[in-house]
């Protein structure tokens, strides 16, 4: 029994440290950023060159795993944050860091308001903090430009945070199955206290959320989670509109021994700009699942899976509004026995990431070969960290093994058996002292 307890603690401890690699594409297609561990890699697609980041903020550079990256809606700003409790805000024209904010706790999510006025980030206690960017904050309450807490999820780690397209709401998802839609007041420095709705329906942690809309139409919220579902929400009223069980579909594609329950969490989702498609990354699925998203009938339906090579499981997805490219990345840091030199990632691009009404279901997009990638080796070298396929294979094989178990373990609430709980109760420190 004792051994089992120790073992369980170790496994879960390792999983909590695990940090998947992230990718974010500039909304106007000017650049792409990849984060793995403390490393932030940026490639300028216009200049066709790797970007060397500069820092005028006076803060240090990232020293621990980056957990969240995000471009602002117009692409002018970029934010990165993570386990080193630093939130760094970058200007994307020069890729110069203009602000480094120190959080009291580790940061799990970051977002920039649509007009670029505010940066919000969520810490390990589930508290959402807000900082005013630039000098325009002058007419607001006197502020020493420190982050202020605006609301919180009660002691639940925020997994994803997004501003609604109209800028009226902030959506936050957490490990306790919840999505909260909060009204963003005109003066958010006094706190965002009015809850518009809760989107409740997930039966496990919510790992990712994304807003989607038809052009000029109302917007909707998409979410994915540990219950292997992608859900479509009327977030204004907190109504669940449709649920797509991705487990069944993946089950058909994988070999039977690969479909153990906890391996099929939704890792990331990414809708197309036109709102007609959703790309879904699923832990253990070598490829990207495409769902058709009918916002008029309010239905999500399985379309197809774009498969990649066997050892490629994307951890993060992103697309820019201008180019029809879906960027995917695979990689991880903070795994046991991982050297820092091994912060290798693998990048794949899926072209034609849009729903062409004429092509219909017959048109199957395929993943670009490395030789077909725009800017070729230059881009791959900058974002992957290495071009050495043999070395990559070696690193990625270990990442692959970790990914299949850790992605879920990182976010799931721990469940202890009845016996384990009783055992823990008996071993409580306050009881020991009494004896």
């Amino acid at each position, binding site marked *: 029994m004792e051994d089992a307890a120790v073992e369980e603690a170790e496994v879960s401890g390792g999983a909590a440290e695990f940090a998947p690699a992230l990718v974010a594409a500039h909304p106007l297609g000017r650049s792409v950023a990849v984060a793995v561990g403390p490393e932030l890699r940026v490639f300028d697609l216009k200049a066709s060159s790797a970007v060397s980041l500069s820092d005028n903020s006076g803060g240090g550079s990232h020293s621990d795993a980056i957990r969240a990256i995000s471009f602002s809606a117009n692409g002018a700003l970029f934010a990165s944050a993570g386990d080193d409790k630093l939130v760094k805000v970058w200007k994307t024209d020069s890729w110069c860091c203009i602000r480094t904010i120190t959080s009291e706790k580790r940061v799990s999510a970051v977002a920039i308001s649509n007009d670029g006025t505010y940066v919000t980030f969520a810490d390990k*206690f589930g*508290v959402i903090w807000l900082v005013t960017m630039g000098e325009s904050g002058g007419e607001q309450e006197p502020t020493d430009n420190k982050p202020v807490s605006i*609301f*919180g999820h*009660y*002691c*639940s780690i925020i997994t994803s945070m997004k501003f609604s397209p109209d800028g009226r709401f902030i959506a936050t998802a957490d490990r*306790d*199955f*919840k999505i*909260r839609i*909060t*009204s963003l*007041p*005109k*003066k958010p420095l*006094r*706190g965002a*206290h*009015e*809850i518009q*709705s*809760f989107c*409740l*329906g*997930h*039966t496990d942690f919510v790992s990712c959320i994304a807003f989607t809309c038809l052009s000029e139409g109302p917007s909707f919220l998409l979410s994915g989670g540990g219950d292997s579902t992608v859900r479509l929400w009327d977030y204004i009223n*907190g109504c669940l509109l449709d649920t797509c069980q991705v487990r069944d579909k993946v089950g058909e594609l994988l070999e039977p021994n690969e479909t153990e329950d906890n391996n099929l969490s939704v890792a990331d989702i990414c809708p197309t700009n036109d709102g007609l498609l959703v790309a879904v990354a699923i832990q253990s699925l070598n490829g990207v699942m495409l769902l058709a998203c009918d916002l008029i009938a309010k239905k999500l339906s399985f379309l197809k899976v774009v498969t990649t090579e066997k050892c490629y499981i994307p951890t993060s997805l992103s697309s820019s509004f201008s180019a029809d490219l879906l960027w995917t990345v695979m990689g991880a840091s903070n795994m046991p026995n991982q050297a820092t030199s091994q912060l290798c990632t693998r990048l794949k691009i899926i072209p034609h990431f849009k729903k062409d009404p004429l092509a219909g279901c017959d048109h199957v997009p395929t993943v670009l070969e490395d030789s077909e990638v725009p800017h070729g080796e230059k881009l791959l070298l900058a974002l992957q960290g290495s071009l050495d396929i043999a070395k990559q294979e070696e690193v990625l094989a270990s990442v692959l093994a970790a990914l299949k178990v850790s992605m879920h373990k990182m976010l799931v*609430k*721990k469940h*202890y058996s009845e016996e384990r*709980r009783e055992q823990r109760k008996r071993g409580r420190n306050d009881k020991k002292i009494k004896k």
Partner: protein
Amino acid sequence: MASGDGANGGGGGGQGKLPRKRFYRARAHSNPLSDSHFPIPISPDEVDLSQHYPRYFPSGEGEARQGDAAVPRIRFADVGCGFGGLLVGLSTLFPDTLMIGMELRDKVTEYVKERILALRASNPGKYDNISVVRTNSMKYIPNYFRKAQLSKMFFLFPDPHFKEKNHRRRVISMQLLDEYAYVMEVGGIIYTITDVEELGEWMRSCLEKHPLFEAIPEEETKADPVVKLLSTATEEGQKVARNGGQTFQAIFRRISLQE
């Protein structure tokens, strides 16, 4: 102990059936931050009211009547109801209002369940509007109630959590008031009372700072029959009264946001 339980005035016949507290000994406190091991409804739609209020929801009808506007809904929530004194007191005061007590301690919840069943058995037609659920209301309030569903919320003698590092465990905080405001209708009333001055000030200042609540004038609270129950109906309140202690109330109204 059981003799202090003055609110169980359920008539002589039921006395034998009422649960005895000595068999439901529990710790005085429970950690609200620990992850829970009891079932939680995924959303308010999944709260099975027929289980709680069988007279209002005869079995089998519960599902079919969901969409009906006339379906009664829970209107009062007693958060941290303890041994249920307030619920029992309110039950006869508002005989047509569904109310629920929320309690984190397992054994205490069991006691309240038994108490309500015993009261119902010995007073046919009464106490059908109260029930209790074991849950962590600091984490799962939105799982039980829809937006603007509640007209009254009660926080009577909550744990004081004196240390600053434990202030986040207090059941009234700016963060949690957001959620309470969400489940309360505009015009709804939140009642708080404590015998700990420091906590009383804390709860009052949180409510005063919160843009969705406003203080209710004293003359209005004096006329409110519920206010008397705050210090007399509950076990904690009676204990304080016995010891001649002071209590600190903060009673606020849910208002709509003014910007």
